[in-house]
């Protein structure tokens, strides 16, 4: 038998990551209790190493390997670099929070790295099975991470809910994939596109499959009406895990949508466009309206995420490079803002005190005007007020939507973001207009302080000079289409 070994080079960062996850587990075992920083450092080094590998091998054209199951293109590399940065920031923000609560165990790091590996595989998948494997690796790690605080009833419930609903969604996805396979006889993304284009497959079966696939995607993106898990998971999980769940996986989910819908089933655009319109409008409506009623900050941010995912989907509706790159820009901006926001929530937590309610933001300006100002920038950015980056993200998506001829959809989008403005303004109101309930100063390590300040001001600076990120998004999409 003639076995040709595949080209490993395009997957070098994934392979490095896999090796390093094992190293982290072993090193943590050897270092033992009290020397957790070893695992922390190795994790950060791993991410840095992956970033260097990805950067060095940054590909301007698509390379397929592992018999066409794995693809390395500029979109994948861009998204992966963003994922490394996000995960690294998550770790910086969360390590003292987790340490205070006795959860800074080796498994925290290895689970996060496994999840990251899952995301990388998802982003680089060019075969439905690879996609599915990546997705499950990510999801299973996330279920475990949510349940990390195992004595907490809320966390266990959240993990349970997440797992059951997540498994259901995976089932949907698999069923959809199998229907597509039945209709076309292939699971390769690129061959799939060709077969659909040739018209040799049964359209009816494909559409039914597509419905299931879109439902699975909507669940993973937490788009309404498949959003039910998000508020509970956001609230129940330890805040550091919420930060992780809410940030990097959205980047992977973007890649996932691109691979499945755009690259694989791009010929069926008229079919999925309509479904995405419904998902987007519902998400913006449910997210923005339900967020108003929340008193728990994490739940509120969960609903805010749902509304942002609706906006993200708007970019796909225009179904062209312009729209996809706008969505990519949106998701990057969103991740940047989410990182800062949850980091602020964690900062307000103290030893033995969980900042859960939006009232915990009361009088922040009197306690620390720097952090209040950073939160102000983040909230305005989430609202979409210039000159913050959130505005340009909304602007890019809206112009793609108008370009595609859906002016009414753009109007719906801005009206819901007007509703959304209210609950972000409420946070600003609490920080600036109300008196603090406690005058305890806010304690933070210098690494968190520096990174959070950088994060907050990046929201402003990238808003004043948005070209770099916009150009990058456009470049990444253009080169991989």
């Amino acid at each position, binding site marked *: 038998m003639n076995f040709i070994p595949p080209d490993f080079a395009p997957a070098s960062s994934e392979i490095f990551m896999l090796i390093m996850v094992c190293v982290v587990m072993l090193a943590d075992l050897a270092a033992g209790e009290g020397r957790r920083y070893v695992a922390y450092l190795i994790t950060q080094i791993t991410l840095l190493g992956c970033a260097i590998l990805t950067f060095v091998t940054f590909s301007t054209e698509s390379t397929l390997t592992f018999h066409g199951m794995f693809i390395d293109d500029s979109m994948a590399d861009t998204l992966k670099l963003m994922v490394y940065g996000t995960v690294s920031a998550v770790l910086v923000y969360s390590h003292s929070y987790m340490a205070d609560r006795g959860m800074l165990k080796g498994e925290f790091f290895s689970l996060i790295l496994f999840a990251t590996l899952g995301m990388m595989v998802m982003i680089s998948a060019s075969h439905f099975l690879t996609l599915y494997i990546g997705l499950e690796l990510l999801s299973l790690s996330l279920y475990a991470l949510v349940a990390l605080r195992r004595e907490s009833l809320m966390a266990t419930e959240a993990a349970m809910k997440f797992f059951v609903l997540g498994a259901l969604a995976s089932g949907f996805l698999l069923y959809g994939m199998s229907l597509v396979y039945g209709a076309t006889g292939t699971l390769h993304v690129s061959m799939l596109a060709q077969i659909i284009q040739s018209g040799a497959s049964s359209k009816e079966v494909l559409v039914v499959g597509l419905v299931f696939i879109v439902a699975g995607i909507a669940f993973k993106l937490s788009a309404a009406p498949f959003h039910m898990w998000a508020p509970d998971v956001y609230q129940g999980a330890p805040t550091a895990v919420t930060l992780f769940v809410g940030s990097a996986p959205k980047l992977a989910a973007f890649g996932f949508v691109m691979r499945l819908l755009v690259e694989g089933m791009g010929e069926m655009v008229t079919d999925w466009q309509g479904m995405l319109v419904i998902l987007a409008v519902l998400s913006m409506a449910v997210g923005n309206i339900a967020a108003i009623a929340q008193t728990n900050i994490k739940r509120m941010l969960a609903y805010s995420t749902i509304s942002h995912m609706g906006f993200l989907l708007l970019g796909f509706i225009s179904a062209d490079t312009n729209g996809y790159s706008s969505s990519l820009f949106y998701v990057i901006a969103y991740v940047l803002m989410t990182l800062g926001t949850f980091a602020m929530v964690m900062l307000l937590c103290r030893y033995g005190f969980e900042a859960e309610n939006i009232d915990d933001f009361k009088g922040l*300006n009197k306690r620390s*005007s720097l952090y209040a100002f950073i939160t102000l920038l983040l909230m*305005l950015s989430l609202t979409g*007020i*210039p*000159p913050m980056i959130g*505005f340009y993200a909304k*602007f*890019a998506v*809206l*112009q793609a939507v*108008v*370009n595609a001829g859906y*002016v009414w959809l*753009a*109007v719906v989008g*801005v*009206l819901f*973001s*007007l509703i959304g*403005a*209210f609950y972000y*303004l*409420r946070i*600003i*109101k609490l920080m*600036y*207009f109300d008196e603090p309930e406690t005058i305890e100063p806010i304690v933070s390590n210098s690494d968190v302080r520096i990174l959070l300040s950088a994060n907050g001001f990046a929201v402003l600076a990238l808003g004043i*000079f*948005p*070209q770099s990120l*916009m*150009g990058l998004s*456009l470049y990444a999409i253009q080169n991989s289409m």
Partner: protein
Amino acid sequence: MSFEFPLLSLIIWLPIVFGVAVFATGDDRNAQIARWISLIGSILGFLVAIPLYTNFDSATGAMQFLENYQWFERFNVNYHIGVDGISMPLILLNCFITPIVVVAGWEVIKERVSQYMGAFLIMSGIVNGVFSSLDAILFYVFWEASLIPMFLIIGIWGGPNRVYAAIKFFLYTLLGSLLMLIAFIYLYHASEGSFSIEDYHNLAIPMTPQILIFIAFLLAFAVKVPMWPVHTWLPDAHVEAPTGGSVVLAAILLKLGGYGFLRFSLPIAPDASHYLAEMMIVLSLIAVVYIGLIALMQADMKKLIAYSSVAHMGFVTLGFFLLNAYGIEGAMVQMISHGFISGAMFLCVGVLYDRLHSRQIADYGGVVNKMPVFAAFFMLFAMANAGLPGTSGFVGEFMVIMSAIKVNFWYAFFAATTLITGAAYTLWMYKRVIFGAVASPGVESLQDISKREFGLLAILAISVLWIGIYPFPLTEVMHATVDQLLTHVSNSKL
């Protein structure tokens, strides 16, 4: 005429840089430093704006002091700024009001001084940016950014109901501007990838989109002006804002709406403007007549002046949509004059409020016995507010009424009732507050205005009289621009 020095950028960014410097002074231990830096910054801001007037070429309607750099290439957005005869006077007004606001808050604001002063300086720079942007997205960025400092000013330093007022102010204005953003995006695609406002002026647009664009702009600008029936945020915001906030709101921020009509609605959608002019005139007249009557009934001085602002701004929109040169120039003069007068009126109420912490007319009476100098100033501004000839209030209203009579007698008739109602509500308030017997022990203990307050009111009094007696320097710079605007408006773009 060429002017190589980036003067406009300096006018925009100098106050912002000073504002950031004021923020950097930190908490209230350095309050005095913060005050002085803001004063220096605001006065410098005014001084650098003067060459804008002296080097202005009033013979042309084209944009001057142009600067054009690429900002972000992805959507062909440029840092494109310049001024014409419409925006230049408004920039000067803004730069003039800023030092006044800083001085007005000098002793009154004791808490978080650096944030207060910094917010005003930054807002001043942002507003200059709004008036000089020639790129739609740059305009939009400045336009929205101006919401943030005002929101904080009302919310932090305002009166008891400040939170409600601040959020109402923010959401109302955001609603209007978001639809304007969509209109810009539509125009971007219609013009095949340009955000330049001047390109839009020559862009052919069919009637239906033109009307929709007009309505999107209308919502944005009508809320800012504010026109009836979307004016309800203004009295709340004014009542709760600190004195400086009220002054800036009335003198500057309302002008953004009026400016928007001239820069966007009229030249970009001229056919829709003609088509809907009658509706706009009726809305404006309702503001003039009905809001004037509402002002009559107010028990709160600030609310009264707020409603009188709405009525006066009704004159501005009326003047615009008469669509002739006299009307538009009159409306422009009215905008500038209203900036001085309403600012001065709010300062006068602020003077009383700082002493007795009440804005209720009923709490005062006989103030003239204790504050004769103040009473004299207040008298002048009240007369100007009522439109007395010889003050700036008269010039604009007279020009607008003159041009209205050419269009339709009844427009002029209803507009002219303002001379009665305006006099009624202003002078009646003046009588109840200033004249009569000393009403309470509080009034008995009043001290007349300090040197600081005297200086502020004197400068404004001179301006009001100057425009009232000799408005030529102001109207002269507008002629060419207004003529050019009218050619845009009279050419159909269907």
